[in-house]
């Protein structure tokens, strides 16, 4: 089944937000917004859920901490305790203070890289991927709002709402 989308191009972020609010208030949904920089508040107008990537970061951090603790305990206490200056590694408890720097660094290492990889994969940002923004001006100074329309009446209503809020170009695209 083919879909019809109305592409409304704006040249200002505040006008884009006005347009998005207007379209939403008329009961239409917004499929996508392409912008050259983060437009604060547009995600709420579009009805996007809050990202949970910081929760992932916390989980990766816990994993990094646990792995580092296991690694140091295994190497320093269980496998081969090194006795340097009469200070042997008998228990993790006695050595914990001097392990804190490496535990911290491993936590940061895993949380930062884990979160970055998750972000790149979830947004499918991979070297060589062809960009999906329909208009190259959306990485410069234009803002594109994509709205699905099911009937000619929908197209007319959305188009007039976009025009009224200052869209500089409006196109109907069949996909």
């Amino acid at each position, binding site marked *: 089944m083919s879909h019809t989308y109305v592409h409304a191009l704006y040249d200002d972020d505040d006008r884009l937000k006005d347009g998005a609010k207007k379209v939403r208030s008329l009961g239409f949904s917004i499929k996508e917004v392409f912008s*050259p920089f983060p437009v604060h508040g547009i*995600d709420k107008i579009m009805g996007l859920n809050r990202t949970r990537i910081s929760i992932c970061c916390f989980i990766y951090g816990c994993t990094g901490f646990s792995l580092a603790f296991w690694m140091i305990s295994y190497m320093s206490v269980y496998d081969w305790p090194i006795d340097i200056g009469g200070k042997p590694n008998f228990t993790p408890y006695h050595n914990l203070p001097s392990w804190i720097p490496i535990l911290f660094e491993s936590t940061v290492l895993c949380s930062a890289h884990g*979160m970055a990889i998750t972000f790149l994969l979830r947004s499918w940002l991979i070297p060589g991927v062809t960009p999906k923004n329909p208009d190259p001006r959306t*990485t410069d100074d234009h803002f594109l709002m994509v709205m699905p329309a099911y009937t000619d009446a929908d197209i007319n209503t959305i188009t007039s709402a976009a025009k009224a809020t200052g869209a500089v170009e409006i196109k109907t695209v069949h996909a």
Partner: protein
Amino acid sequence: MQHESVIRDPLLLGKKTYHQITEDVARPVEGKANKYWWLMLALAVVAWSWGIGCMAYTVGRGIGTWGINRTIDWGWDITNFVWWIGIGHAGTLISAVLCLFRQRWRLTINRSAEAMTIFAVMCAAIFPVLHMGRPWLAYFVFPLPNQFGSLWVNFNSPLLWDVFAISTYFSVSVVFWYLGLIPDFAMIRDRAKMAGRKISYEIYRILSFGWSGRAKDWQRFEEVSLVLAGICTPLVFSVHSIVSSDFATGVVRGWHSTVYPPYFVAGAIFSGMAMVLTLVIVGRKVLGLEEYITIQHIDTMNKVMLTMGSVVGVAYFAEFFFAWYSGNPDESFIYLSWNNAIGPYAWAFWALIICNNLLPQILWSKRIRRNLYITFIMSIVINIGMWFERFDIIVTDLYRDYIPSDWTYYSPSWVEVGIFVGTIGMFFTFFLCFARVFPFIAQAELKTTLKATGDLFHNPRKIKAKTGNTDGAPVQPQTAH
């Protein structure tokens, strides 16, 4: 939209629009390099080549080619290591700590400061690897059983903490920097597409990872940037604290000091900010970005430098006072003591005090903070002073050992000097290439603050006077094509 107080000066001069920012940031990347850039690059490559030769000579003949001896076994090598690591700190301070504090002035300098961090850490890493004497065994610093038998690395050693701290710091800094670059690469890519430059388009298409600026991507991007800033903030403080532990946990008097971690961090930010100033004062002029990196930015960075210099000054005073007040004869030979002030290394002692404490006092004057020539000279003076701080800590704490028969003097050999000059050449080679290939300013982030701090939108009273817009509200942008 966020508004800035009207009593503040705008951070973006010259009536910029979104498109104008794009044009100004893309210009150095799309244009051709001038002869000064090529001249600078040639000098940097020559210096780097000399350094590579000296490194190869060191690896081939051993570190006996250096001037170090049994008493002073950490000479220029570890001095340069700590100096480079310290320089890196201002980049993360600007990109992470100032991000958490919502300092908008960081937006035009964070990209170049982060690049500086990465290149500085790369230069720093060369030194301990060479100091090992057998760099082909450098992988032994990672948690592997020695000789692949049973004995593991020592997790109680600050030298091992350093391995983890610096490798984490480097890799996380690279990730933070590159994620910020992705939308800017996409901007260059789309401009290449519109202009029909196929090779440029393909290169930046790969570099931009297919970024298209979807709302959900921006939402995640902002969250990732904020959380990374939160993670990098303790990271940056931990790294130099750990580097200082290399000294502070030792039994050498002068090194065995609890003030070292905060003192090293303040010193690192002090020297790093000086290096940022050196780079951006030249960069803004060469790349024509004076309206982005304004005198206001230079003034603010000078204030940070003055604050950090004062913290370092208090630490010097504390070290000097307690060395004297303790009445311990060993302590009276530390790097900040009367004996050092009049001893054979008095020149190094006074170089430190003059460059780091006395001369920076001129920055209390607003007129001087806003003078580019004096600021540029001061930034170099401070970098020299901070190099001497590390030299004094290492060499002048070691040269008067506990046993007077060990007392000696140290001068670097031409090989050590060559390696240091080589790392400076490597740093500038990378930085010059960065300034030509990568967007020098984080334009996507900067555009978010255009309406808050741009000259065109910033001060409603000025706008009212100029345009007759009676409601006093910021005017809508005028797109200029």
